[in-house]
């Protein structure tokens, strides 16, 4: 049954059951801007047949961290919110900043373009602060790292965006969050409520795909995630056979693997939740009861992974160009991954009888994680001595600069490959390339 209300003189039908307080907000009793926030969430809920709003139970994470000048429409909304004195109920974290001239060097032309592109960065960060940003270090796509501290509990209801963080929170932590868009996540954080549908419900968390991993060795996380994402798109997969390779406990290594795999499922498809047999919290608890009847089956073997990897188009102008930069850490690296990558680069340098990487190589990680890593003087100094730099930027936003996009950039991130001209290589391949300085085998 439809209800209706008057919004700025315009009649709007809605289907959700709203409380008196929610209806009052919709009717403008807390001002026009809050009414628009509510209207957006009610329309959003109605599309997905949500029956009601539910309270969020943990701080939010926002996806929009960049002040790109042409996103004026977004800044206008932020102004409306700030001018109305509206803030989020709890402090939030946000995705990485786009720039770090100290650690990711740019030529004058690139800098000029960045200056134009991200000309609103300072203004936008000020808008974020006014809205409820946690602190000046709260810029990372991996807000759930212990050092960053935005860590929900199993069962928490979230209003997050950032596809890699949402899929991690749902799958590895067992929190409940839909794949919200930028701005929608902010509206939920302001209202303290989100419409209840899809991944917030038991039914919506059931798997409609069974993915059977039948590879001869541990699959590359980012290629496995890519294959799953491209196949199941926005459905929920239940992955069998992966625990054989990454274990039955959510160790730091297993969580890092799932972080990288999940980011690829979310960017190469639109996966918001996956279950891993014997490993992720709901799969451990509910086992195969999580799989819907008549779930489709996708078998992944060595040949399938090879097929997927070979399907990635090469969009460098010169396919055999010498690379000029290497990004490792999209999503941001954990502390353990910074240690592992330092060791990996060290071993490769020994193997190639070199002391420094030949290719400008940048590891990206959250500001608080980098601070933790710097406390480990031995590893930090070793990494710097290899010629590798550490930054907390978003490589994707760096590559959005059309001048930077012309560079031959290599990465081990399937997300970065998807959105930019960067070329994907496996961890083993990229280690060798970074040290050698070229892509020839």
């Amino acid at each position: 049954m439809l209800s209706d209300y008057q919004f700025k003189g315009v009649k709007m039908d809605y289907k959700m059951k709203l409380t008196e307080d929610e209806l009052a907000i919709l009717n403008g009793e807390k001002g026009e801007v809050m009414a628009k926030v509510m209207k957006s969430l009610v329309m959003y809920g109605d599309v997905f047949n949500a029956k009601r709003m539910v309270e969020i139970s943990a701080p939010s994470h926002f996806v929009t961290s960049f002040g790109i000048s042409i996103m004026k429409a977004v800044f206008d909304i932020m102004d409306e919110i700030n001018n109305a004195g509206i803030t989020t109920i709890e402090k939030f974290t946000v995705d990485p900043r786009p720039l770090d001239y100290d650690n990711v060097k740019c030529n004058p032309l690139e800098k000029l373009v960045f200056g134009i592109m991200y000309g609103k960065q300072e203004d936008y960060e000020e808008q974020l602060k006014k809205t409820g940003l946690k602190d000046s270090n709260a810029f990372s796509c991996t807000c759930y790292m212990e050092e960053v501290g935005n860590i929900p509990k199993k069962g928490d209801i979230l209003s997050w965006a950032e596809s890699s963080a949402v899929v991690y929170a749902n799958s590895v932590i067992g929190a409940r969050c839909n794949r919200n868009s930028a701005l929608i996540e902010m509206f939920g954080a302001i209202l303290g409520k989100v419409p209840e549908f899809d991944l917030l419900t038991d039914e919506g968390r059931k798997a409609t795909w069974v993915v059977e991993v039948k590879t001869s060795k541990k699959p590359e996380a980012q290629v496995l995630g890519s294959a799953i994402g491209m196949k199941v798109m926005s459905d929920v997969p239940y992955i069998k056979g992966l625990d054989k390779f990454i274990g039955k406990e959510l160790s730091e290594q297993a969580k890092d693997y799932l972080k990288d795999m999940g980011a690829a499922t979310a960017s190469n498809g639109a996966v918001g939740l996956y279950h891993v047999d014997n490993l992720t919290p709901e799969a451990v608890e509910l086992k195969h009861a999580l799989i819907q009847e008549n779930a489709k089956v996708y078998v992944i073997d060595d040949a399938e992974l090879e097929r997927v990897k070979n399907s990635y188009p090469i969009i460098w102008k010169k396919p055999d160009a010498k690379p000029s930069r290497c990004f490792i850490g999209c999503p941001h690296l954990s502390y353990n991954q910074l240690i592992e990558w330092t060791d990996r680069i060290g071993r490769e340098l020994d193997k190639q009888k070199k002391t420094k990487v030949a290719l400008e190589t940048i590891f990206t990680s959250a500001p608080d994680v980098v601070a933790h890593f710097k406390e480990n003087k031995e590893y930090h100094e070793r990494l710097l001595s290899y010629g590798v730099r550490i930054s907390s930027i978003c490589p994707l936003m760096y590559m959005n600069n059309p001048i930077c996009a012309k560079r031959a950039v290599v990465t081990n991130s399937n997300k970065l490959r998807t959105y930019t001209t960067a070329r994907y290589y496996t961890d083993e391949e990229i280690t060798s390339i970074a040290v050698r300085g070229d892509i020839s085998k």
Partner: protein
Amino acid sequence: MKKEFKGRNVVAGTVQAQSVVSRKGMNTLATFQKSILAKKKTVFGSDQNNEDLYKKEITGKALCLPKTIGSTTGGMVLQSAAALGLAPKAMLFSESIDSIGAAGVILADVWTVHKIVTVDNLGQDFLDYVKDGMTVTVKEDGTVIVE
């Protein structure tokens, strides 16, 4: 030959436009970002993984697709495209709309003066029938006529 399909209104409206068709999920950020960042007056698809839309004109078209995929910035990208006058006139989904696509068209509707008329649940028959360059008429009740 004219064929009629009935879907569900997400953002109701009346519009007529030429179709551009993606047979698979459209990655909104990857498709729109290059043209928006380059301040083009028209969006040409820039997603290297989507050969259906790659380098095709999208602004002002009736964009026919199963769903959107990819980054959660997608909704904001659609809203910004609408505010800049770069959005498609209509988005016509064969499947149920996804959360990012829905957010984009709702944000455009509530927070900008530009509307992207949106209908979902049009069915696989719709996507099988419609081809690039056909004339698509969307009616207020969610009826879509392709000819």
